[in-house]
């Protein structure tokens, strides 16, 4: 807090010719991305992999090939919903890092429920009910961190992470013991038939989950920037004490933030099952949530900009999965890129503030 103030005062006393705001923002966002790719390339070089060949392959498989781009666009759906979940939380100053647990449990419950419901309900109704169910399960998995944060002041980073570790194991318990498909030897839930899943867009293999994701992130963006409720949340995020003085019920808003954020993460799990997977295998955990964190930071919690970065990341991750099979570079490489990206992002922000403050 103090450093923020200091910087603001320095900014006021030593103005400097500024780049255009748009150019500055673009440089701030793209600079770290390019630098992260270069540093990641160095890591590949050390491992004896030609980085240029790797990146070319990734772009070919994730962006340029017809199947690749369709997989990329399909992958965006859960990532966008998770990004929406994080934007609500981060703008309100709440570190919901439990997205993976909320996502996974939403997915498992939906995977268990959908094949059973389809025997009694029409397909569209199953999809609607299951999405609501996924969101509800996600929200339920955040109740404990929400209450602890709102009424006991317990740090939510720790509690949400603990709920994720707990949730990953619990999801496995559910898949192996409670919801296991008796018809197969591998431990997995029953499978929702392709015909009953979320419809595909036009003549492609792209899941309509993409539309849900885009709508969700734009809705969240409008809610946070254009509504009174969003303003309240942002006040809580900017300064809790000011929010209390303004008469806002901070504990209640905190619980509301957790509920919205976690249900979006749970919805992401539902959409991934209803649109792509159809079932949950034991030990399945894509762990999307933490990798989306740098993307929403890059976009500065701005909805439309997030869509662009999620697209970029999807290309990298779909192409990376191809590269894992063909070039022998495991997908862990994207984690390295994400880590580097987060650090460079902070660094770019620091350099920008110092430049605007009039240099050292």
């Amino acid at each position, binding site marked *: 807090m103090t450093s923020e103030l200091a910087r603001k005062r320095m900014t006021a006393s030593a103005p400097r010719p500024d780049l255009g705001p748009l150019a500055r923002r673009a440089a701030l966002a793209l600079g770290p991305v390019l630098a992260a790719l270069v540093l990641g390339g160095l890591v590949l070089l050390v491992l004896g992999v030609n980085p240029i060949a790797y990146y070319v392959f990734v772009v070919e498989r994730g962006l340029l090939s017809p199947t690749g781009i369709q997989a990329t666009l399909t992958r965006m759906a859960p990532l966008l919903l998770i990004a929406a979940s994080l934007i609500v939380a981060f703008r309100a100053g709440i570190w919901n890092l439990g997205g993976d647990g909320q996502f996974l449990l939403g997915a498992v419950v939906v995977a268990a429920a959908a094949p059973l419901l389809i025997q009694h309900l029409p397909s569209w109704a199953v999809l609607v009910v299951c999405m609501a169910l996924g969101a509800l399960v996600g929200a339920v998995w955040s109740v404990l961190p929400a209450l602890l944060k709102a009424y006991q002041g317990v740090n939510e980073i*720790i509690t949400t992470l603990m709920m994720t570790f707990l949730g990953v194991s619990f999801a496995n318990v559910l898949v192996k013991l409670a919801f296991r498909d008796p018809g197969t030897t591998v431990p997995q839930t029953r499978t929702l038939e392709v015909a009953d899943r979320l419809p595909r867009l036009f003549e492609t293999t792209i899941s309509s989950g993409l539309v849900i994701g885009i709508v969700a992130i734009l809705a969240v963006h409008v809610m946070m920037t254009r509504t009174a409720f969003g303003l309240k949340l942002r006040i809580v995020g900017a300064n809790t004490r000011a929010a209390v003085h303004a008469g806002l019920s901070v504990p209640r808003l905190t619980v509301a933030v957790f509920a919205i954020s976690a249900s979006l993460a749970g919805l992401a799990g539902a959409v991934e099952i209803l649109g792509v997977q159809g079932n949950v295998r034991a030990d399945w955990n894509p762990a999307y949530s*933490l990798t989306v964190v740098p993307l929403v930071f890059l976009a500065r919690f701005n909805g439309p900009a997030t869509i662009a970065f999620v697209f970029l990341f999807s290309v990298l991750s779909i192409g990376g999965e191809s590269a894992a099979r063909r070039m022998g570079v495991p997908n862990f490489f994207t984690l390295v890129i994400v*880590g580097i*990206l*987060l650090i460079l992002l*902070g660094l770019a922000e620091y350099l920008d503030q110092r430049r605007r403050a009039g240099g050292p």
Partner: protein
Amino acid sequence: MSALFTEAFLTALILGAVTAGIPLMLAGLGEQISEKAGVLNIGIEGMMLIGAYTGFLVAYFTGSIWLGFFSGSLGGMAVASLMALFCVRLGLSQIVIGIALTLGAEGLTALLHHFQFSQSYPRLEAVESLAIPGLSALPVIGPALFDRPPIIYLAIAAVAVTAWVFRSTNLGLALQAAGDKPAALDAAGVDVIAVRTGAVLTTGLLAGLGGAFMAEVGAGIFVPFMTNGAGFIGIVLAMLARGRPLWVLLGALLFGACLSATTALQVAGVDIPTDVIQMLPFAAVLAILVVFGRRASLPPALGSHYVRGAR
């Protein structure tokens, strides 16, 4: 149920609690030092993983577990130095950098392990233990506590040393002030940045050693993502111990017992799915946070960057 409390079961339980608890204890102790000085160290999981990997690698190629422990600590410190540079010197968000270091370390160790060993998981030789004459002959606690690798005795000594530093030295006072009221420390002529940098590096050393212990003593192998939340449990331990190192040790042994319950129950012939057992430590953490959450305490200046002269 009577079979539960046999000598073999109790020995296995305490033995496992110590083996699983020591890395948690080292992480918690390290986190406590950082937090005391006002730095919330979320990157501790990454420090442990890098420590585990470098420790394993060096022990594997040199055959010396001590060189392994040494390099594991250095590896942890290397990650911590990034944290010190970005968070303590430049004042970047401790949470963002912490997440970044953890993710980066997860990816990097898994990647390096893949290129080094592909899908194989070579095993280290079992670490030799040092029996303490007399005590090691006791039933149950003898083999579980007093006939163990010497690094365990050293780790427990670290708790005593930290407690002494906190309570009786100027350094302990400086650490406390850096977290409670950094401006006062600055006014007293002590460099806040230096104190915090030292604290973060010590955290890295302890976390790296904890990771190396996990790989060399606990598992005997390195598996990607093997720390599996131990660093985060360490953070909880530090939060709940409220600045007292001894509590970290006790808490760590308790969680260690949860983690090792699988093996002990298998010895006793009780069959519980491993996924259920894996939930135990995290469920325990949450239960404790529900009960004692209000009493968990953190220093006032935790998480905020110190800028000289800023109000």
